[in-house]
C-alpha cells in the first residue's frame, strides 16, 4: 500500500460504471442493440399503458361507468356503451367468485373447505421448511392429511355428505392436483424400484406400464376412466366421477414420477448399494434407509416440475365434463347473463394458475440451488 501512495488513484471511466455504464453495456453496446432496445421500448410503451388501462383504469369492478351495480353482462360498461372507451368487466369474476372458488358446495358447509385449505398449508410446512420445530410430528400429520381432507370435504363421521358433483372451481383443481401428486408419489417410487428390479417379470411389467402411460395422451386415459372403467367393474360398483378421473390422473402422474425417481436412483453410486448390503440390510431396509432418501433428494426439483405439469393438466377434466376452475369459467361464459366476457374469464383463470405454478417453479429453482451447494460442500 505504501508503495502506491505516490500514485494518484484514478477512478474507472464513467462509461463503464453506474447506471449509465450499465445501460451502455446491456442496452446500447452497438447500433443493432440500440435499435432493438428502442424498438422494444416503443412496443412496451404501446402495450403496457394499454393493458393497464384495459385491466385497471378503464375497467369495471363492482359498478359500471354510470355507477350502477353490475348484475349481468348488460350492465358492463363495454356492453352497455360499445362506442365508449371501456376496459375489462371484472364483475363476472366478482359476482361468481364463490363458484370459482368452491363450485356448488353448500355455503353453510364451506368452512370445511376453508379449513382443509388451512390444513393443507400446515401439511405442506414440514415439506417446505426443513428447520421447522417439531418437524417429525408435523410429517405424521402430512401423511395423514389426505384422509383428513377427504373426510372434511366429502363428509361422514358426523359431517354432512357433500357429493362430488357439487364440488367445483379451484376446489376441484386443487383436489385433483394435491391428491394426484400425493398418491402418485409412493406409486411412482414403487414403479421406479420395480423397473430397476432384478426380477425380470416385475421389471417387465413396470416398464410396460410406464412406457404405455407415457406413450398416450392424458385425455385418452381420462376417456378410459370415464367410458371404459365402468365396463370393467362389476354391476352395482359405481365409482364416483371425480374418483374415476382421479384414478386416471394418478396413474398418469405415477408413470412420469417413476421416471424422474428412476433418474435419481441411477445417480446413486454402486458403492451405496454394496455398503448397505454388506451391513446386512434387506432389500426394503436398504431402499428405505439408504438409497431412497438420497435418490429422492436428488430428484426433488424434477418431481416438483412434473407436479407443475400435472397441476396444469388437471384442466383437461373439463373435456369430460368436470367443473374445475376453467370449467366454471366456461360455464359462466355459456350462461346468457355473462356471455361474451371470455377475455376477462380466461385472463383471470390464467392468473390463478400462474400464481400456483410460478411459485412452485420458483420453489424448485430454490431447491436446485440449495442442492447444488450441498453437493459441492460434500465434494470439498
Amino acid at each position, binding site marked *: 500500500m505504501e508503495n502506491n501512495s505516490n500514485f494518484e488513484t484514478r477512478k474507472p471511466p464513467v462509461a463503464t460504471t453506474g447506471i449509465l455504464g450499465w445501460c451502455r453495456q446491456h*442496452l446500447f*453496446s452497438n447500433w443493432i442493440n440500440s435499435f*432493438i432496445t428502442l424498438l422494444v421500448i416503443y412496443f412496451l410503451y404501446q402495450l403496457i399503458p394499454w393493458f393497464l388501462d384495459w385491466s385497471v383504469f378503464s375497467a369495471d369492478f363492482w359498478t359500471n361507468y354510470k355507477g350502477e351495480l353490475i348484475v349481468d353482462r348488460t350492465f358492463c360498461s363495454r356492453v352497455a356503451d360499445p362506442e365508449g372507451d371501456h376496459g375489462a368487466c371484472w364483475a363476472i369474476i366478482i359476482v361468481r367468485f364463490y363458484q370459482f372458488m368452491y363450485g356448488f358446495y353448500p355455503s353453510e358447509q364451506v368452512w370445511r373447505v376453508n379449513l382443509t385449505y388451512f390444513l393443507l398449508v400446515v401439511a405442506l410446512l414440514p415439506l417446505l421448511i426443513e428447520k421447522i420445530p417439531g418437524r417429525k410430528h408435523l410429517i405424521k400429520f402430512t401423511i395423514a392429511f389426505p384422509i383428513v381432507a377427504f373426510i372434511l370435504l366429502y363428509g361422514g363421521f358426523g359431517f354432512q355428505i357433500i357429493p362430488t358433483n357439487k364440488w367445483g372451481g379451484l376446489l376441484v383443481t386443487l383436489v385433483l392436483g394435491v391428491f394426484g401428486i400425493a398418491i402418485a408419489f409412493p406409486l411412482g417410487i414403487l414403479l421406479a424400484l420395480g423397473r430397476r428390479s432384478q426380477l*425380470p417379470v416385475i421389471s417387465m411389467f413396470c416398464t410396460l406400464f410406464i412406457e404405455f402411460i407415457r406413450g398416450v395422451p392424458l385425455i385418452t386415459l381420462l376417456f378410459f376412466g370415464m367410458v371404459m372403467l365402468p365396463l*370393467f367393474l362389476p354391476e352395482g360398483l359405481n365409482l364416483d366421477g371425480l374418483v374415476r378421473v382421479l384414478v386416471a390422473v394418478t396413474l398418469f402422474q405415477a408413470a412420469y414420477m417413476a421416471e424422474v425417481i428412476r433418474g435419481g436412483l441411477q445417480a446413486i453410486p454402486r458403492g451405496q448399494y454394496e455398503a448397505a448390503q454388506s451391513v446386512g440390510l434387506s432389500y426394503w431396509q436398504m431402499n428405505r434407509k439408504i438409497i431412497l432418501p438420497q435418490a429422492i433428494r436428488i430428484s426433488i426439483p424434477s418431481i416438483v416440475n412434473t407436479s407443475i405439469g400435472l397441476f396444469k393438466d388437471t384442466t383437461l377434466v373439463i373435456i369430460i365434463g368436470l367443473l374445475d376452475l376453467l370449467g366454471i369459467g366456461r360455464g359462466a361464459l355459456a350462461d346468457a347473463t355473462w356471455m361474451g366476457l371470455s377475455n376477462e374469464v380466461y385472463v383471470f383463470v390464467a392468473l390463478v*394458475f400462474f400464481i400456483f405454478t410460478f411459485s412452485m417453479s420458483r420453489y424448485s429453482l430454490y431447491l436446485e440451488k440449495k442442492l447444488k451447494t450441498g453437493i459441492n460442500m460434500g465434494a470439498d
Partner: protein
Amino acid sequence: MQNNLFQDQKFRGILYQTLVVGFFALGLYFVINTTAYNLEKRNIATGFGFLNNPAGFDISFSPFLDFKSTDTHLKVYFVGVLNTLLVSFCGCIAATILGFIVGIIRLSSNWLLSRIAYIYVEFTRNTPLLLQIILWYAILIQLPRIKQAPQIWETFYISNRGLFGPKPIFLDGSNIVILSLVLGFIISFFIARWAKKRQDTTGQQFPTFTTNLSIIVFLPLVVFFIMGSPITLEYPVLKGFNFKGGAVIRPEFIAMFLALSIYTAAFISETVRSGILSVTKGQREASGALGLKKNWIMRLIIIPQALRVIVPPLTSQYLNLTKNSSLGIAVGYADLVHGFGGISLNQTGQAIECMAITMATYLLISLTISFFMNIYNRSIQFKEK
C-alpha cells in the same frame, strides 16, 4: 427345510414373480368376464365390424381426404390420424424455429430483449395449454365476420371463419413441375455431399447454400414456364355470406397450431438455452482466436456441440406436442381423439375398440418419432476416434 427355502434369494424371486403373474392373470380374467357380461347386458356388439359402417356425421376440416357423412368410421379414423399428424408436424416445425430464436434471445447481451423472452417463457410455461388453446380460439372467433373481413392484396381474407387464400389448381403437366422440384432437392442433396467431401479433403469451400437454393427455385420455375404454366391459382370470391373457391384454414386449426407451437417453443427455448450454456467458454474463445466471425462461431462451433445436449429433450418435447394435439377436442378440431375417439365412440358405443385403436395409434406415433429422433441423435453425437 421350508425355512431354508424361504431364505434362498432365488426361490423368493421366483415365488414373488409367480405371485405377480398369478394375480395379474386372475385380475385379467375377472375384468374380461365382467366386461363380457356388462357388454352383453348393454347390448353392445364387440369386434371391429363397426369400422365399415357409415359414420353419419360430417367433419368440417379434412384437407387431405374428401369426407362425406356416408363414409365409414374407418375413414373417420384416417381423417383423424392425418389431422393429428398435420397439426403436430406444423407445430413441431414452428415450435423448433421459435424455440431456437427465443433460446438465443434469452442469452442476448441486450438486457431488455432477454427479459422479454424470459417473461414470455414464464407466462406460457406456467399456464395450462388447454387454457391457451381455448383463449386463442376465443380471440380468433372474435375476428370480423366474412362480410367485413379485412383483406391483403385481395388475395387473403382474415375472418372469424378462418383464413381464406388462393388455392392452387393443378392442370395437365403439373406433375412434371412437381417432379422437377423433387429432382432439384435430390440434385442439391448430392451437391451438398460432394461439396462437404471436397472441403474435407482439399479445404476448398463451395457456395453450397446459394447454389442449391437457386437449383431448387429456378429448376421448377423454368419447367413451369416451358410447360405453359400448368399450375394456376383460384382466388376466393365473396358470394353471399361465404367465400366461393379458394382455400381456407379453419380457426380451429390456427388456434391449435398457434397454441401448441407457442407453448412448446417456451420449453424448447429452455433446452436450447441450457444446451448453448453447456458449451464451455473456451470453445468460444478459441474460435474467436482463430478469427471466426461472430455468427460463424455460433453456426460452426457452438450450435453443433449444443445440439448434442439439446436433441434428447427436444425429442420428448416433440412427443409432448404430438400428444397434446389431442386437446383439439376442446375447440372442435377433428383430430384422432375428437373424430374417432369421440364422435365415433359415442355413435357406436364401442368404447373398448375405439379407445384401444386410438391409444395404439398414439403409441405407434410416439414410437416412430422417438425412433427417428434417436437415429438423428446418434448421427450428431460426438464420435470418438
